[in-house]
């Protein structure tokens, strides 16, 4: 698989969530993703960016455009926060340790084609999502 381009976007404060959404919208539209697919990955990015800030204490988003054989958009959210002790539990709908709806992790998993999560207490959290064209 060929990575065509890579860029990093800071995800540190609430206004960064708006920047994340705008950037993902631009890139996914350039790639020619359908309006529905654009909306799906933008929404997933919005969820994960907010988690990165609220629970991960801030981090970054890596944007990769993929080509060959398939065209797609891959986003990696990374932070050096406290990590998630029980990933299966965190993915469960309705589970929250904050005051949210507890649908961000499970929801973004359903909104994309590939979802990979790596998290350990004390080791931060890294979540990679991919949406194919």
């Amino acid at each position, binding site marked *: 698989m060929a990575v065509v381009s890579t860029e990093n976007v800071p995800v540190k404060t609430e206004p960064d969530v708006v920047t994340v959404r705008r950037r993902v919208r631009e890139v996914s539209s350039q790639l020619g993703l359908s*309006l*529905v697919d654009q*909306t799906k990955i*933008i*929404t997933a990015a*919005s969820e994960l960016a*907010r988690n990165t800030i609220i629970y991960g204490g801030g981090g970054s988003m890596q944007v990769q455009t993929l080509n060959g054989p398939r065209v797609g958009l891959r986003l990696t959210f990374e932070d050096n926060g406290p990590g998630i002790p029980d990933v299966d539990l965190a993915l469960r709908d309705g589970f929250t340790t904050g005051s949210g*709806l507890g649908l961000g992790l499970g929801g973004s998993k359903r909104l994309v084609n590939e979802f990979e999560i790596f998290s350990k207490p004390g080791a931060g959290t890294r979540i990679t999502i991919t949406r194919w064209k």
Partner: protein
Amino acid sequence: MSEMQLNQKGAKLVDILSGQEERILAEWMKEMTGSTRRGDLIKESELRAECTQFLKLLKQTTEAAGTDFQSPSFGPMREMLGDVSRGRAQKGFKPSETATFVFSLKRPLFDQIQTQYKGDTDAMAAEMWSLTELLDAMGLYTMEVFQKSREDMIRRQQEELLELSTPVVKLWDGILALPIIGTLDSARTQVVMESLLQAIVQTNSRMAIIDITGVPTVDTVVAQHLLKTVTAARLMGADCIISGVRPQIAQTIVHLGINLLDVTTKATLAAAFSVALQRLGISFVRDAAKS
């Protein structure tokens, strides 16, 4: 440092300024020509008046209180610098252009010191040092005020924008519409909710249509805020319909697993209006003679 010494120091600055005001003013104005002068933003006459006033105050204040900018005697000077700074922030000056109002006075004053202290290098150095300290303190103060008034301006604009962007319109007797444009963050939700609830009470409305055509992304936070607004409206006796739910948004909401309670959703405001009329038992008949 004793009061005596301070006053002596101040007295020297007074000597430097005395009788030289015109010359210093001219040189100062010349120093400011270029980037700081900003003839496009401030009139020459206005700038001249500011500078003249500044030199007059500087002479009066240092004569009475020396060169300690922190002393209470510098109150009127602080006030004046504050006005200058705030005025420039409002006019659209850059921070550096504002700071140089004070800093560009250095050269004209140093030139005067050099002329008057010819031969006495120790006294010259001491005088330059205390003057540098004073002008630096003034420059920093100018920056602080500038920064603060810019922040105030931005906050005010944000507040104004929040209110502007949440109009509640009465569509029909008993039916309100609330078009939301942009993202629905916590601060925004608070304003939206307050204006909606207030309008419900004022107009005695039983139906409220929240239109999200202008909301680009509905994530779980936006959904949570929408649900909060719907629940609050219900407590006031009004039922809500969410309109402007485009197909891609509907799909995303389903994938996220958001339960919109039993809120009716419609693709368009027109469809929502029609439902609202029905619920209130209002129906229209086409006038046969005109169709």
